[in-house]
């Protein structure tokens, strides 16, 4: 049943008011040939109890795994208050805050979110969020091109050590704008962007440089040197950053002497469950000069008729509902609900709490890696400092390890072979604060057993 409140009396009265005999008659403008018969692939209706039972059984079959995969989605402790409040009907079932006076809750929350993100990234302005980290990067590249109108013939440098799915998403989304994407290699020993690869580019060849910190392998880049190189070549710098790491690492606004121009990233680590990949949210921050080229919603503080403070969507003339074909993007979503969760999460943790989480992840990852690299044939793939993810070379096929450790209900990490066959047997693992010493011991024991 479609949650319909109408009684037979209601229906009769409504039809009488309209002046028709049946509901069917309301569809009389639709050509006969187009009216569909019964649906064949949608089942008969089910009660809520039956639906919950069915989905509970299915969810259970995916549950109870100790996962050590990061690779763009990170399992962190989520304070109970976060989703208790975020799922209040007033937040969860509100529409886009176009009627500002009836949406002050959502609008003020987004303003607070923007403030927190500018603080974390060290940049001037933030938008109300984009779909996810990958699309935020694609939008950042489009934004850089709009900012630099005379970009024809210039390249956007995309290092191959950013998340491979981000690279693919960028290619899909920016494909039609005449922007030239140039993939650049990373060093096989350090895992960092290979500065030698950059020598081929002259000043003004480059529109923008993308730098991931930490990169897909968890390796920390020399962001200062990269940013200074980009600036000396008149290129914009787009940082792709993990928000948890920003509590411990230098913010993009302070990279090099001038700072990055745009910072984007996946907001999921801030209170959003890994949940099969979404809904997450992408964040985007930038220097003030770029604000008019930003895609998506932005909330501003203003005053009402009485001079009282209030919040409203601002700079809307950039957006599709006004600018149509000339909008900065076709986007008309921000991931409001997950942004609500993230704002509550950041309030609860504060900088101190976030730093404790970040440092705990770093230490635990190093703890596990140091145990594993004691084992024969297991070694670091790269010799650079890493954050809370680490790529390891294995003596056996990563897929085999994964299958064997499944018996202990452990997912040891992401098998890198399908993404980077050149590494041979390799694994990317991540440890967050959610893992205990006992979890790490179980991992090491199960791993050892695989090597026997």
């Amino acid at each position, binding site marked *: 049943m479609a949650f319909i409140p109408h009684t037979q009396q209601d229906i009769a009265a409504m039809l009488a008011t309209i002046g028709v005999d049946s509901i069917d008659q309301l569809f009389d403008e639709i050509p006969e040939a187009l009216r569909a018969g019964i649906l064949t692939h949608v089942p008969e209706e089910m009660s809520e109890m039956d639906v919950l039972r069915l989905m509970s059984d299915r969810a259970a079959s995916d549950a109870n795994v100790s996962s050590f995969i990061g690779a763009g989605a990170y399992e962190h402790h989520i304070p109970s208050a976060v989703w208790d409040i975020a799922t209040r009907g007033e937040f969860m079932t509100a529409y886009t805050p176009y009627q500002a006076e009836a949406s002050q809750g959502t609008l003020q929350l987004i303003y607070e979110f923007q403030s927190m993100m500018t603080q974390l990234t060290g940049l001037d302005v933030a938008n109300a969020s984009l779909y996810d980290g990958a699309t935020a990067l694609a939008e950042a590249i489009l934004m850089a091109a709009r900012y630099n109108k005379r970009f024809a013939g210039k390249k956007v440098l995309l290092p191959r050590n950013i998340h491979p799915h981000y690279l693919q998403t960028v290619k899909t989304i920016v494909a039609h704008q005449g922007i030239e994407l140039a993939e650049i290699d990373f060093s096989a020993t350090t895992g960092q962007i290979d500065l030698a690869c950059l020598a081929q580019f002259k000043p003004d060849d480059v529109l923008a440089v993308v730098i991931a910190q930490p990169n897909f392998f968890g390796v920390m880049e020399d962001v200062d040197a990269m940013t200074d190189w980009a600036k000396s070549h008149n290129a914009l710098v787009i940082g792709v950053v993990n928000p948890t790491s920003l509590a411990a690492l230098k913010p993009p606004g302070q990279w090099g002497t001038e700072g990055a121009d745009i910072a984007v990233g996946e907001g999921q680590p801030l209170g959003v469950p890994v949940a099969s990949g979404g809904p997450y949210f992408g964040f985007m921050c930038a220097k003030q000069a770029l604000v*008019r080229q930003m895609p998506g919603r932005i909330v501003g503080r203003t005053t009402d008729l009485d001079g009282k403070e209030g919040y409203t969507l601002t700079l*809307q*003339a950039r957006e599709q509902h*006004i*600018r149509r074909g*000339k909008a900065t993007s076709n986007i008309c979503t921000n991931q409001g609900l997950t942004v609500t969760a993230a704002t509550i999460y950041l309030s609860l943790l504060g900088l101190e709490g976030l730093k404790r989480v970040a440092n705990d992840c770093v230490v635990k990852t190093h703890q596990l890696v140091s145990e594993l690299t004691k084992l024969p044939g297991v070694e670091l793939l790269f010799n650079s400092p890493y954050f809370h993810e680490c790529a390891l070379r294995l003596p056996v096929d990563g897929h085999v390890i994964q299958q064997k450790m499944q018996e202990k209900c452990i997912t040891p990490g992401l098998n890198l072979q399908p993404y980077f066959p050149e590494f041979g047997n390799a694994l990317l693992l991540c440890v967050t604060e959610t893992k205990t010493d006992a979890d790490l011991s179980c991992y090491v024991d199960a791993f050892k057993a695989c090597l026997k």
Partner: protein
Amino acid sequence: MGMIPAELKYAKTHEWVRTEDDGTVTVGITDHAQHALGDIVYVDLPEVGDTLKAGQEAGVVESVKAASDIYAPISGEVIAVNDELADNPEMINNDPYTGGWIFKLKPLDVNELDDIQDSDVYKEWCESGDH
């Protein structure tokens, strides 16, 4: 309708054109256009040195809830832009024909001016419909 000074010429896209003594032309948007847009909050100006064709987009005027392209009424090279509009875009609302000018062109072909409406034709055109 707003003010439509008789000495200016008018494009159908609501730009006015004034021919200066030195042969250059000054371009802005009409009183009618500024009124339809409402409070103007931002102006995107062309760059000095740009060469524009007649009818080509030269910039954008934004109000809170609308944005309107400004087109070059005739072909020419942009020789000046009104930088003051960056901080005071409301000058277009307050003073569309003098302080609110937007850019100046050095015409490529002055004959193109003949293709633009005179004030009475523009007035009639505005009155004729919901432009």
